[in-house]
């Protein structure tokens, strides 16, 4: 019995991280049909936000307040990742609606840039970048209007960006001579996010010993799910989002601002990634590669769950969580010690975390043979069109 509870709890724990991580992805993919490969990097931004908040609490605020820094980090991470997502939507994804494969590639590109950005960013770098971007935006304002109506205008546009870019580079490199400005903010190293003491211990619930961090994440997942569900089902904007999902043209005709709806959906999906980023700091390392560790798992959850309902995401994530745990920990061997030799060998073969992953993915592919559109497929006539 202990074993059962243990398995359920650990499966739930692994699964809830997956739910949280995949939730934003599922929202964006389900509602907009956009595959966001930069989702993991948006999580990473959330984790880095946590790091910054933690340091501010350490440095500026009284020590008594430190335990609640994580609660402050949650909304902030939502905002930071959400805004980054918004920027991404406005500059890139907007141009690619209806071209999911191109979106996939473009967001992959963005993910690479974000990864390297957190590695390289220093004060000099940031100042240079800001100067370049601001100057680039301002150039059209401070040059004769007629320049911008010529045949060669596109060249001028590119050229002005190159020039402002070079200005940024020069500024950055001049500043870079100064030690203060040259220090990278985060560098390529992993950064240290320390959970407050109340999240470091564990709590005994009945027979199972539950790490507090895990419980916190499970609770956070439940809250996030409830909020998202409430938002989509009950709020005005949620209604609009669903309307646009079902029929974009019609919604447009009815006066729903579809562009705003898209932006909002993406903002929420990205913000959720940020929240997930805060959560994973409690479990693992925080570094530029954080996103890559989760992204494929998240996609598996979304594919397995189908895009019809949030319930699919939850069920798929928990399923994957429990399965990985059961296979990876080899608990089957404990339940049934006298199993036949061949089976025993097979289970032992897969009873490491690496091999469990192999098996779980293989099982997902097999499952999709039976239900190609996942657990909760989108239904109706529109699907194949």
């Amino acid at each position, binding site marked *: 019995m202990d074993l059962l509870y243990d398995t359920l709890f650990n499966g739930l724990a692994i699964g809830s991280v997956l739910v949280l991580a995949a939730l934003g992805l599922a929202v964006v993919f389900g509602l907009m049909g956009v595959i966001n490969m930069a989702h993991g990097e948006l999580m990473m931004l959330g984790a880095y936000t946590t790091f910054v908040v933690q340091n501010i609490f350490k440095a500026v605020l009284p020590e008594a307040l430190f335990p609640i820094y994580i609660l402050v980090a949650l909304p902030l991470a939502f905002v930071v990742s959400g805004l980054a997502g918004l920027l991404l939507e406005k500059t890139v994804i907007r141009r690619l609606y209806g071209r999911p494969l191109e979106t996939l590639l473009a967001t992959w590109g963005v993910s*690479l840039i974000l990864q390297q950005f957190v590695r390289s960013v220093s004060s000099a770098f940031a100042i240079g970048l800001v100067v370049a971007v601001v100057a680039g935006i301002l150039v059209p304002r401070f040059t004769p209007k007629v320049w911008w109506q010529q*045949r060669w205008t596109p060249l001028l546009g590119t050229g002005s960006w190159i020039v402002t870019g070079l200005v940024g580079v020069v500024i950055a490199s001049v500043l870079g001579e100064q030690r203060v400005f040259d220090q990278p903010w985060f560098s390529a190293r992993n950064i240290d996010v320390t959970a407050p003491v109340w999240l470091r211990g564990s709590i005994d619930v009945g027979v199972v010993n539950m790490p507090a961090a895990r419980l916190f994440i499970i609770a956070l997942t439940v809250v996030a799910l409830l909020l998202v569900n409430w938002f989509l089902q009950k709020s005005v904007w949620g209604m609009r989002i669903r309307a646009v999902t079902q029929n974009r043209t019609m919604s447009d005709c009815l006066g729903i601002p579809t562009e705003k709806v898209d932006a909002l959906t993406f903002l929420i999906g990205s913000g959720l990634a940020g929240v997930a980023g805060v959560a994973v700091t409690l479990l693992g390392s925080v570094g530029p590669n954080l996103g*890559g560790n989760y992204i494929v798992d998240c996609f598996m959850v979304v594919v397995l769950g189908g895009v019809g309902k949030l319930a699919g995401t939850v069920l798929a994530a928990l399923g994957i969580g429990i399965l990985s745990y059961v296979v990876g920990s080899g608990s089957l061997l404990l339940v049934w010690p006298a199993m036949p030799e061949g089976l025993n060998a097979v289970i032992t073969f897969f009873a490491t975390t690496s091999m469990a992953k192999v098996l779980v993915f293989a099982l997902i592919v097999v499952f999709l043979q039976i239900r190609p559109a996942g657990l909760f497929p989108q239904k109706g006539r529109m699907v194949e069109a």
Partner: protein
Amino acid sequence: MADLLSSRNLRRWLPWALIVLVALVLPVVLPPFRLNLLGRFLSLGIVALGVDLIWGYTGMLSLGQGIFFALGGYALAMYLQLNELKPGELPEFFSLYGVKSLPAFWQPFNSPLFTLVAIWVIPAVVAGLLGYLVFRNRIKGVYFSILTQAALLVFFNFFNGQQKLINGTNGLKTSTARIFGELIGSDAMQRNLFWLTVVITVAAFLLCRWLTHGRFGDALIAIRDDEPRLRFTGYNPTAYKTVVFAVAGALAGISGALYTVQSGIVSPQYMAVPFSIEMVIWVAVGGRGTLIGALLGAVLINYAKSLVSEALPETWLFIQGGLFLLVVLVLPDGLVGWWRQGGPGRLIAMVGWPPRTATYPALDLDPQVVAEQDQLERSGGGQG
């Protein structure tokens, strides 16, 4: 000048001229190290051809070509590990893990003939099987992409974790192996391998050309444009997709084998997620839906990568990320597509020389007129 550049003839032969140049002139000029790099990049061009077949022509974005690439590499590396061992001897790494006898699946790789076939047949069969299972259920679009990526991870984890079977993360070395008594890592051998790569690249190119330039190729494009429609015309797209995915797999296998002997090692890193996505960007930059674009893209991007990482390693990810955005947002048809659609002419037109027109201003530039002219020229050339 503008006239020359906008001439369609030029647009057609120039990419070819570049290839010929690369193949003939560079081996003489380049030092062994650079030549070896070029050979490797050319072999990457073969996998890019496969990506182009399935993505550029058929519209299926596979993020898992690394599987087949690595399988080809492993097949050849296993043979080389066994080659010229004394009877009873095992490849050295086995002793690290206490393995006493050769695992059964290694046995066939004692045979060079088997290996030559396995290099492309194993990846093709794996691709065909995987493809069939996926296509049968009409899984396509991003779902297909994600599933191929998942499959990639399965293979990666498997190869990475199986130290005792296949030397895990370390991969298999080939450069200290010998073939025909010659060290594979030696300069002379590498030069031969370069020529072999050139020959095989040309052969692969011709194969792809044959596949894409007939009704079969039309069917692939039809699948990309409107798969359900094709189905109602009596075609079974599953068959086509499986075949073309298997062909792409075989090409990837050959490419992986050539790459392996030229880089000296095959490792699970060939199945890392980013590498397989990079393959797509080669094709995208070169020009998807054009075979020459795939080749050019693979060589150019990899050369750029090698140069940049020598000078400024930190910036490569920015550049690569920027390339992804660039080809998706600004150059959807890649360099070759841009070139063929008269991009340079347009660029020049921007700075002041309007393209010289022979007739009524708009007529020369009208796509319909251009297409008709094309057709006339072609039938005049006797191709019918």
